[in-house]
């Protein structure tokens, strides 16, 4: 797309515009000091290269715009820049008024977008600890499973032996520590089946059992506070 074509007032939808180049133009055209101040640690120079600077909040904002609109805006911005040199076809409007309207609109929209972005990152920051803790706990669950499998193989008699009972107590200590950290087992057997908590791997038709009820648990599920660490693997009746 050449400059000449751009200035002929072709509707923006018919333009082939490289989004990145467009962004650079937009940022250059804008240079909004107030806005830059809002976005921490980013200056205009950085924002000119949004594709190389993903964590610049400024760049984020600019490209976050509705893409089709952007095409139009870049178009207008370009025209305004060139308006001193070339006269536009029929329009009698002061190009400066157009630009003021367009820039005011853009500032408003970008502020709204920035608020959304900030709200989201605030929420994400708050969740970061939980996400990290969850992934660590997930790795521990198979170890707990094996403690349980191992203890389950013991006879009553064997269970009384000092080593076995020591292991049993160690297992209980581990479970208590996890409970204090917010990890607790999901109730399954006898509960109504709930796909948010349970993962059905088998189904059985049996009149003696209730409707849509968990009848057997193959693997214990766990919650971390209110979120599921691992779903209970269960058999469901009817």
């Amino acid at each position: 797309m050449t400059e000449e074509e751009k200035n002929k007032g072709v509707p923006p939808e018919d333009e082939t515009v490289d989004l990145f180049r467009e962004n650079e133009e937009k940022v250059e055209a804008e240079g909004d000091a107030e806005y830059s101040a809002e976005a921490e640690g980013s200056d205009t120079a950085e924002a000119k290269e949004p594709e190389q600077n993903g964590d610049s909040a400024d760049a984020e904002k600019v490209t976050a715009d509705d893409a089709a609109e952007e095409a139009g805006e870049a178009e207008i911005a370009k025209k305004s820049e060139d308006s001193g040199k070339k006269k536009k076809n029929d329009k009698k409007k002061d190009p400066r008024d157009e630009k003021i309207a367009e820039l005011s609109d853009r500032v408003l929209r970008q502020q709204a977008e920035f608020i959304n972005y900030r709200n989201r990152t605030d929420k994400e920051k708050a969740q970061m600890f939980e996400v990290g803790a969850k992934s660590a706990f997930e790795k521990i669950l198979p170890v707990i499973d094996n403690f349980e499998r191992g203890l389950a193989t013991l006879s009553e008699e064997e269970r009384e032996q000092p080593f076995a009972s020591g292991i049993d107590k160690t297992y209980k200590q581990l479970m208590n520590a996890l409970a204090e950290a917010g990890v607790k087992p999901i109730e399954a057997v006898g509960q109504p089946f709930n796909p948010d908590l349970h993962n059905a791997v088998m189904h059985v038709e049996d009149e003696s059992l209730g409707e849509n009820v968990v009848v057997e648990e193959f693997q214990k599920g766990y919650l971390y506070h209110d979120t599921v660490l691992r779903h209970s693997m269960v058999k469901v009746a009817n």
Partner: protein
Amino acid sequence: MSKIIGIDLGTTNSCVAVMEGGQPTVIANTEGSRTTPSVVAFTKTGERIVGEPAKRQAVTNSDKTISSIKRHMGTDFRVTIDDKKYTPQEISAMILQKLKADAEAYLGEKVTEAVITVPAYFNDAQRQATKDAGKIAGLEVKRIINEPTAAALAYGLDNEKEQKIMVYDLGGGTFDVSIIEIGEGVIEVLATSGDNRLGGDDFDERITRYMIDEFKKQEGVDLSLDKMSLQRLKEAAEKAKKELSSATTTNINLPFITATAEGPKHFDMNLTRAKFDELTHDLVERTTTPVQNALRDAGITASELGKVLLVGGSTRIPAVQEKVRMLTALPSKAASSPAMPVQATSSFSMLLRLPFPSRRWAA
């Protein structure tokens, strides 16, 4: 003035992304995953559920659970649930609605426009059905983009010189190979081929089978008979496969895998990459013919390819990469950009860079 989302509406899994700061971001669903199972279910109480919860209840509600609806797109196929008939478009729309809602929750604003990817071999009816699904879901589908084209865009290849490219996409359950041509503002799909019964799951299966056989030899116990043991072996096999992409040997340790009259038995085995390659050699080999067919249909030889794009998690397997090198005699540009998780079946997300209708993307 809402954002445009990019949707990869897959046969087994779907994925949604949005452009942020010039980079595509894959949006996690409300359950926290970056992919959402393409499963829709109607519960006994008449409630509709989509994605992971739907998948988790499939076994116990199979009559009213619909999966792989993509295979029926553009046909007269109808799903009957509680005496009500649904078209494939309507079912797909339910998946799209879920993705749209997840995107809205993430962005904190309404979403009304989308770009959706489809396989390059989709015909007009299938493309129209995909568009209709978007419309039913309340999305204006700005464009339907071919999956291999989206992959090329994801790597920014549209800004490179004119060239012919091979997209080698080995996902969880299917293998697709496409030859595309990048020209002046146009990406054209020249040929496609593949194997819709070949993917990462087959590699896991080979390891699982080997583990069962080895244990039987050593301990005389068939672990495949115990559902819980089998489940543990399958999970361990997938983990081992992933580890062997970077390490040359891995340890598979499953204490108390089963118990006999003699007491508990443990599974402990080292698996080398060499052994893994031996077990899966024929699977890798099965990609050869589709690659050759695609090249032939495109009327070119491997030497005319400018690049090979590897897409899909299974292309992380070193033997697969080696095979591609042998078939094409080219260093491949591996799918490893952090912005594009390879588990998101096609790295479609950069397609959002080009929402301008004037950019003529040949279908």
